[in-house]
């Protein structure tokens, strides 16, 4: 009995020793600096077709979370400047195609990945938002409106902001609200193009294309202000 018990105890002690070895081994591997993994190239057409044949919504949500977590690796925050923005925008395009009704990829693009302190990367992301607006203006106008603000204030590229704002202003009246349409006026004003703003506002008021009284009042105030500044 004693002999049996001692052999049992020996096995327990041995198990503890093995487990302690595992803990030490794990600790040593955690201590090592893991190599940073950048965002890989997006899925191939074949892999995408496998996903489509499977449960697309499930895989779509998993991929979103996976992509979103790329800036946190092994408990460390990675700067967005280190991320491969070409692959990132390609991934966001794939995700946008997978679930066209969802706003998640556009939210990531506009509110997360435009917070990068690198002009080239920021331009890439703004270009992605612009492309997605062209594909689905009715859904993505709000994201292009935010991109316009970011181009104006973060990138300080008034020409780019103006081109986005003019694209938005061309959208059918029922698709986007007036405040989005008016963005080009404020950007032109920022650029010092007061005469052009006056012409645009005057034209809008004269051809009676606007029916909303609040919008008419806003445009009248803007026109008065510009005329006062001019005098």
């Amino acid at each position, binding site marked *: 009995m004693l002999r049996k018990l001692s052999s049992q105890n020996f096995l327990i002690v041995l198990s503890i020793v093995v487990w302690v070895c595992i803990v030490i081994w794990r600790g040593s591997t955690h201590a090592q600096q893991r190599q940073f993994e950048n965002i890989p190239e997006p899925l191939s057409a074949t892999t995408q077709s*496998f996903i489509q*044949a499977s449960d*697309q*919504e*499930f895989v779509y949500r998993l991929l979103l979370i996976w992509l979103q977590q790329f800036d946190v690796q092994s408990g460390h925050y990675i700067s967005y400047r280190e991320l491969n923005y070409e692959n990132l925008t390609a991934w966001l395009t794939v995700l946008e195609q997978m*679930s066209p009704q*969802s706003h*998640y990829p556009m*939210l990531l693009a506009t509110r997360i990945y435009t917070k990068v302190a690198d002009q080239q990367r920021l331009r890439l992301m703004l270009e992605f938002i612009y492309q997605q607006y062209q594909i689905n203006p009715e859904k993505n106008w709000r994201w292009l409106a935010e991109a316009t603000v970011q181009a104006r204030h973060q990138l300080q590229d008034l020409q780019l902001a103006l081109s986005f704002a003019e694209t938005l202003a061309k959208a059918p009246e029922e698709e986007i609200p007036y405040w989005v349409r008016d963005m080009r006026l404020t950007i032109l004003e920022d650029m010092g193009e007061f005469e052009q703003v006056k012409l645009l506002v005057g034209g809008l008021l004269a051809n009676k294309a606007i029916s909303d009284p609040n919008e008419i009042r806003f445009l009248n105030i803007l026109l008065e202000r510009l005329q006062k500044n001019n005098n």
Partner: protein
Amino acid sequence: MQHPVLTIARFSLLEAIRGKIIWIITALLILSVMLAFFISQTALTETRETQVALMAGVLRLSSVMVMIFFVISSIARDFQDKSVELLFSISIPRYQVFIGKFAGFSLLALSAVVIFSFGLFFYSDPVSVLIWSFSLWCELTLVALISLIFILSLEHVAMSLIASIGTYVLMRFMPAIQGMGDGPFQDSVFNQFMNKVLDLIDLLLPRLDHFTQSSWLAKGAASEIDVVYFLLEFVLFVCLFVLVGVIDLKRKAI
């Protein structure tokens, strides 16, 4: 006296209940809720959609695996303790034994689906949950039927598991596998032959890629066409597989 089919079905279900399979199914639901909650905490928007889509995906895959393992282990045990021989020696037609077993497993699938639905009602609208659950029941029933045919035919646990899981993969991914055949080498004789083989297999298996979509719960996107499609596939292939199973069982020498 109860009909033999009902008796066999009842005992199959009882075996599942006594084998604590219902607890495993409940544990799956709890685990999927926890997993979906944990992952969806990182979601910046569309949290409910993320949560329900992840839950639905995990529940679907895990319940299919549980069903395959349970059916195969249950029949394998019947072979081991000679219950199959006992059933075949008494004056019950073999087709009734097959249908009884199948009905029992189908009832087990129904129990699993009912348990899952209770959890899902908190995350999605009732109509979407009902459609998704009904589709999952159809899928689990088909999977149980295929596993039953394989284990009765092969009488070998490992081989039946591989065959059942392999068939399930084919049923889920057949369009993608067929799509691979349309690659740059599509004009080669071998490729054309393989495409014909795949087309033939496609006609022999239900298209599970149209069943139990998470988007039905996340977006309430199930259309009438979706429901009619999976329902028709289910009815037609259950008839085909039951016939195949019964023919195979009748030919079997025990």
